[in-house]
């Protein structure tokens, strides 16, 4: 009961946070038919700035990290990415009303990671004064790539069964393709630059101070986009909506449990556990879709983009972040 009332008060206080206000604001003005829009070039630049900031920050601090500590959370991330896709494969994709390829692609997108949700969660933890290991954002690629690759493999196995023996799936290009996406490239480039050079100056006077402000604009874009994609969702089975509402909760709790285990075993920080849950609950909104479109061409993009952009992302930001935050505060007595 206490957890529940804590949750309510966390929600109330998150509603005051600009990130959420801009997200909801974007949905409201799109619903009212406003012509306000953020130019595409600006949107893409903001995504670059956020991921570069996250990468640089992780890279700078990771220099001092004990690589042994990273191992368990990285394996857990890999595992979660795969688990989410398998769960989706045998629930959503197995439903008779859902085309198998569409279901698998959707599961892949929910297994992959949203950079914006990650950024929003980092800001919230920061504001709450909850620390986490600098390398936690670097867990992103492990979960992201695992989920996308597995989804593409499962879809191809399915096509194989349907159409008789076809060409084998080449894993190499799928890996390469997802690493080359603009989001992961920016994150990893920042990570490497942070590791091998001394970008502290530029980080502290440029990338870091602009982080929260640019995030507020990204939230506005995501809100507008979410509303505009609702239409697309109407064309597909109701199951997608139900999945998009329920699955993130399951994924986040699973990740929280495994993160808690790592906390007990290797002292993974409470903030890290919360962030891991948020990452797991999030769904890829930027780089996942094109990777899946290329990897599972027969899947209908309206199905997976509709459910992730219109439902999954707003839910994981507006509900997921406060939820895992409260859970963390409660479990770790923060």
């Amino acid at each position, binding site marked *: 009961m206490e957890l529940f009332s804590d949750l309510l008060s966390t929600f109330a206080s998150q509603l005051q946070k600009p990130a959420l206000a801009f997200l909801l604001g974007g949905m409201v003005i799109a619903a009212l038919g406003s012509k306000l829009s953020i130019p595409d070039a600006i949107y893409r630049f903001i995504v670059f700035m956020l991921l570069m900031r996250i990468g640089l920050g992780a890279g700078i601090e990771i220099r001092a990290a004990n690589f042994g500590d990273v191992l368990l959370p990285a394996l857990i991330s890999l595992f979660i990415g795969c688990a989410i896709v398998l769960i989706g494969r045998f629930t959503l994709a197995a439903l008779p009303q859902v085309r198998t390829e569409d279901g698998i692609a959707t599961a892949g997108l929910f297994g992959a990671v949203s950079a914006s949700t990650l950024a929003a969660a980092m800001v919230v933890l920061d504001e709450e004064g909850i620390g986490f290991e600098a390398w936690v954002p670097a867990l992103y690629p492990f979960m992201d790539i695992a989920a996308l690759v597995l989804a593409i493999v499962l879809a191809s196995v399915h096509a194989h069964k349907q159409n008789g023996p076809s060409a084998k799936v080449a894993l190499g290009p799928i890996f390469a393709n997802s690493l080359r996406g603009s989001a992961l490239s920016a994150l990893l480039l920042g990570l490497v630059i942070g590791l091998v050079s001394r970008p502290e100056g530029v980080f502290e006077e440029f990338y870091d101070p602009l982080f929260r402000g640019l995030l507020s604009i990204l939230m506005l874009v995501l809100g507008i986009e979410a509303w*505009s994609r609702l239409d697309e969702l109407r064309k597909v089975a109701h199951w997608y909506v139900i999945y998009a509402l329920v699955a993130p909760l399951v994924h986040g709790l699973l990740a929280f449990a495994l993160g808690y285990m790592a906390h007990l075993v290797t002292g993974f920080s409470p903030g890290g556990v919360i962030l891991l849950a948020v990452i797991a609950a999030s769904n890829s909104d930027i780089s996942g879709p094109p990777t899946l*479109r*290329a990897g599972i061409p027969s899947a209908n993009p309206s199905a997976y983009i509709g459910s992730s952009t219109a439902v999954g992302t707003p839910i994981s930001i507006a509900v997921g972040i406060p939820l895992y935050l409260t859970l963390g505060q409660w479990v770790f007595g923060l």
Partner: protein
Amino acid sequence: MTHHATKISIITEKLNEQQIEQMVVEAGAKGYTVFEGSGRGSHSLKTRSRPSVVDAFSLIKIEVIVADREKADAIVEKIASTYFKDYSGIVYMETVEILRLEKF
């Protein structure tokens, strides 16, 4: 002193751009021109003004002029059979007049 040639127009998802361009060149076309656009067809609406969170799905139009009609037919055939089962898109041909036959 003009000559007749066939202009092929391919409207499809940007995602396919590189592969189609390669296919067109391998089929013997000496050049192509690409424009960005948006549109609506039997698949869902493509938009332009909003930031396309998923830019790879936005539309392009590839125009290819070839002097040899058979080459044109082969290109059109190849593209229609490879892409339009899974991806949105249309392809059509027009007759155009050109000056320098050797360029096409």
